């Protein structure tokens, strides 16, 4: 479902003397449907950079990133927009929403974007919010005022609203208590069981051991000739 080959990335800092910083070379990995692969490596080794490239948020310098039939490294913006709507979900560490929009609508939005009826989309959103222990009295409020842990759970609910065939998870259990951590791990296991290909970053070692089928150490993708 996800196949990365020969992927490289560098940053050019035009406003700092045009310094070119190579951050990744020859990256390769595969995630099959129904498989969960964990990225490991020290902080700064490029785990998040790799995830962002798969999502099309960072441009690749070379190589290919196939998600389903699309090569994200070469795709046009509108193809990536369609991929994100239909196929590829992403739970980032930060919630970014229009202020004033209710939590229920924030979670339902990916389904509304797919053209699902509003009633069914909100029912699905309500189910996820209950499961993640967000009290019902908060559903009509904007999540911008919520605590870090609550925002994280809203973000997860949003990321799991649609049954994406491929999922990217950036520290989904960070800042969660034991109960909610358990709910999130079950959601991940269910997504894997229905056949989703999952690529994730988990600093929580027990969580990693429980949901990941394999680990890939991104340290192997660090450019050798450090400029």
């Amino acid at each position, binding site marked *: 479902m996800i196949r990365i080959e020969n992927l490289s990335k560098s940053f050019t800092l035009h*406003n700092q003397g045009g310094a070119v910083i190579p951050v990744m070379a020859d990256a390769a990995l595969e995630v099959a449907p129904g498989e969960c692969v964990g990225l490991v490596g020290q902080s700064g080794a490029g785990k998040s950079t790799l995830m962002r490239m798969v999502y099309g*948020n960072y441009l690749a310098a070379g190589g290919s990133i196939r998600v389903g039939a699309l090569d994200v490294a070469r795709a046009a*913006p*509108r193809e990536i927009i369609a991929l994100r709507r239909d196929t590829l979900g992403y739970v980032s560490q930060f919630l*970014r929403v229009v*202020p004033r929009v209710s939590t229920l609508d924030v979670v339902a939005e990916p389904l509304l974007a797919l*053209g699902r009826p509003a009633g069914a989309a909100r029912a699905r959103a309500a189910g996820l919010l209950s499961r993640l222990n967000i009290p019902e009295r908060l559903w009509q409020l904007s999540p911008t005022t919520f605590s870090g842990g609550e925002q994280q759970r809203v973000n997860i609910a949003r990321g799991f609203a649609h049954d994406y065939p491929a999922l990217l998870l950036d520290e989904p259990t960070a800042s969660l208590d034991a109960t909610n951590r358990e709910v999130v791990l079950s959601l991940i296991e269910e997504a894997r069981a229905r056949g989703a290909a999952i690529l994730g970053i988990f600093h929580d070692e027990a969580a990693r051991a429980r949901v990941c089928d394999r680990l890939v150490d991104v340290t192997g993708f660090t450019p050798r000739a450090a400029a």
Partner: protein
Amino acid sequence: MTAMDRIAAVTRPLLQVDGLTKRYGARIGCADVTFDLWPGEVLGIVGESGSGKSTLLSCLAGHQRADLGRILYDGRDVLAMGETERRGLGRTDWAFVHQNPRDGLRMGVTAGGNVGERLMAVGARHYGQIRDKATDWLDRVEIAADRIDDRPSAFSGGMQQRLQIARNLVSSPRLVFMDEPTGGLDVSVQARLLDLLRGLVRDLGLSVVIVTHDLAVVRLLAHRLMVMKSGRVVEQGLTDQVLDDPQHAYTQLLVSSVLQV
């Protein structure tokens, strides 16, 4: 068919712009601008004042005549059209939301009249139907029905802007041009307007070209982003990619200059 099905069924861009150039004497307004806009897409154009983004928008909307280049709307060559045909498009298929609502509204006419007038321009004649549709649109932009007979001069800035949007969208345009639509509004009012615009784009399958200098607004509203400097497009791509991994020196400067809150 839902808006989504209609969008899925299209095989060509709604708007194709190729090499568009406008000069003021020796000075460049905008030069060699090329892009495609597909149904349901929101394209943001950012840049500092004087970067040519407003010139580009007014050339696209036909308010100014471009010197060079080509604009195809739904396959029709806009620059080769006669004045009557182009004005017709402006009334039916296109809409233009001005930064200052006073430029897009008739201040001496009631809220209902402002919305109804646009319907009459496309041939509606039945008073009851016009009033019903106007009431429906005022409700969609969250203006209470009992304000329908008030003049826009009695409205707050945010309400005027929402009224301008209702006036523009009541005739079901397919392409909407917006010039700094959230500029000059309080941040809380801005948020409400952004939410409204996002819902309308999604539910009606609108294509939008939005000019702004506010990077937070484009991040939340635009699918794709074009960065202009000195009349030229220096970078374009997926909005979050351009903002998070900018490639051009100017975009890097622009993004790093934003104050964090």
